[in-house]
């Protein structure tokens, strides 16, 4: 059940950070930047940065978990 707990915790973190990001983009960029094109560029950059940050975090966590997995061929 460790897998269910670990991955659920990760999913909850992703979910919460996405809601926070959506709120921040709306509160900071959409409200305070007047130029439409600049709003789009900044918004897209923020979402792309969020995707990239989570992607690299997940890959790093996954590689660490796999490295620690028991080597069954030694049994």
């Amino acid at each position: 059940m460790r897998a269910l707990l670990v991955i659920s915790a990760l999913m909850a973190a992703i979910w919460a950070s996405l809601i926070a990001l959506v709120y921040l983009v709306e509160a900071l960029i959409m409200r305070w930047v007047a130029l439409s094109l600049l709003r789009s560029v900044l918004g897209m950059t923020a979402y792309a940065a969020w995707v990239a940050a989570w992607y690299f975090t997940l890959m790093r966590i996954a590689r660490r978990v796999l490295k620690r997995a028991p080597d069954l061929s030694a049994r």
Partner: protein
Amino acid sequence: MVSTAEASLALFAAAIAYLATPLIARAMRAIGHVRPDVHKPGRPLVPYSGGVALYIAITPSLLLLVLLHPSLLPQTTTLALVATTAFLVGLVDDFKVLGGLTKTALTLLAVLPVVAAHAVWPAQVQLGRPLVPVLGRLRLTIIYWLLLPLAVAGPANVVNMLDVFNGVMPASTLLATLALMISTHVIYSDPQAGILLAPLVGALVGYLPYNKWPARILNGDSGSLLVGAYIGAAALLTHTEFIAMIALMPHILNGALVIGSVRGLKEHRAMEERPVRILPDYRLAASRSLRAPISLTRIILALDGPLSEREVAMRLVGLGAVSSLMALASALLVPRW
């Protein structure tokens, strides 16, 4: 909470799927369209392309929906065309294996009926301004249209990529679809808000008993692409794209991990190494190879393994239940519409 019309429609689809699936399984076996169930001793040959049964259940249910609610003709037609496109791409792949890139490119076509319906019926098929927690309607203009091609192909392909063990695809997507259906009721005051999802809920309920472990029919890409595309299109039509994305989070995570680790879109048969090893007692263990793809299953096995196929499937469905609950929580956070 769920209206009588929704329940009746789901029941109708469930009855068709439950009656049609064994007939389709028999027909597929008769024409030799079978695949080995690789995680079982002796690798038994199991009928393939269970998606045909799902399609047979969904299309008459959509027809019944139009008869019950003629005003929903635009949305129903859109869903039927999206489902047909994704189903046909999957069926071709079931019989004649397509490359990973070709299959993904073809699934991109499944969004065209949504765009066409928006052009023909702009008042009934509205696109854009997805509903998000806390804020309500999101102001997305350029980004929305840039991401639109992925709104149907994305769910279709990620559902397809997690269709790896008996029962996982119908069980996890049933939970996601139910979450989406309940979410539409939470967000909108209309008692029929979730009716577009009722045919899929019913079809999956009727089909699941035949695909759960030990499977008597395998879904094939015709099944997984059809179900994923339907969810994506229904989310577009009900403005619940954010909620659908949360409900399908295990599928999305798995897709991102696999695509990232193999550096591109590859058909699973084209991958040199498998993420999972089958032990002599038919339990599954995470691959130790550095070149093997990283998948959600491999991580589960690294943390809890070795496990039986059924134990891995239960964990994947458990993750689907968690993401579906998060989707419902998201819907509760959306300002009432």
